[in-house]
């Protein structure tokens, strides 16, 4: 199995933010059961030996984990690898989580830290079967499992260009500024959760987000 190297800034039709931030409605019995469980319940059940409970946490948070990592790394393959590693790390260290209800914020902290470490190390790629996880272009046009939001090629091209410009702009920020603006402004996590994730105060989050926005506003002025 080869690892795909297609550019993330491809003009593939894409999901809207809300489609991965907002949990999808439960479809099966297991999903309905998980939907009624709090993160705290699922963590406690996992610690008690109920492994499927952790699968529910994976389904609940994988989109947010991949989205945060993708925005920090700018590469979908790396984001998938980091997200898998983050869930593994979370599972192994689950007993050390002081507040089971805070699983989401704790996981995002792991995702952020691993993403930033990944950026520094740029270690060799693992052998995840990534090709199978990214929806191919032809499958999308043929009605793949995700709808096209932008069928117009001109719109796709403009969106891809803007996406590339934004990724460049995000790279000019410090790690704290980038993480803060990604988690708060883009992923719309509560400031308190962002503060927990970054290991700083809410006031510091506000400051980092402000500094990030100020820089981005200047860099992206032509698009605003």
């Amino acid at each position, binding site marked *: 199995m080869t690892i795909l190297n297609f550019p993330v800034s491809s003009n593939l039709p894409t999901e809207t933010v809300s489609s991965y931030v907002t949990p999808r409605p439960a479809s099966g019995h297991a999903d309905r059961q998980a939907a009624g469980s709090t993160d705290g319940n699922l963590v406690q059940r996992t610690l008690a030996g109920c492994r499927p409970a952790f699968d529910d946490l994976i389904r609940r948070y994988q989109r947010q984990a991949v989205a945060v990592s993708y925005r920090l790394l700018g590469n979908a393959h790396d984001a998938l690898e980091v997200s898998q590693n983050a869930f593994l790390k979370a599972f192994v260290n689950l*007993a050390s989580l002081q507040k089971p209800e805070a699983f989401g914020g704790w996981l995002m902290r792991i995702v952020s830290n691993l993403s930033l470490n990944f950026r520094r190390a740029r270690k060799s790629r693992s052998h995840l079967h990534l090709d*199978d996880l990214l*929806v191919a272009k032809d499958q999308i046009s043929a009605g793949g499992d995700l709808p096209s939001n932008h069928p117009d090629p001109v719109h796709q091209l403009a*969106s891809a260009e803007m996406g590339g410009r934004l990724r460049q702009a995000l790279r000019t920020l410090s790690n704290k500024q980038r993480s803060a603006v990604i988690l708060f402004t883009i992923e*719309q996590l509560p400031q308190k959760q962002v503060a927990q994730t970054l290991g700083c105060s809410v006031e510091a989050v506000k400051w980092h987000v402000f500094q990030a926005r100020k820089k981005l*506003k200047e860099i992206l002025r032509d698009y605003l």
Partner: protein
Amino acid sequence: MCSDELEHLLTEYLDGTLSPARRSALQKHLDQDPNAQARLELYRALDELLRVAPPLPPMRWDALAKQISAAIPRSPPKG
């Protein structure tokens, strides 16, 4: 009010994190200052841009969940 202070307030206004009193005071300022209003709109446009781009490439979420799950031990985590 200096430029930086005003811009900080404008972003907090957008985030809905200002106290009612400060929000009201800023609203009055905005009503009288077209320049401040224009800056507010610039930040609003920036937030909208940030939230739509760069979007995630389409992914097979069910397959990803299974792959992540397969990489995690079946035995419970050690306490």
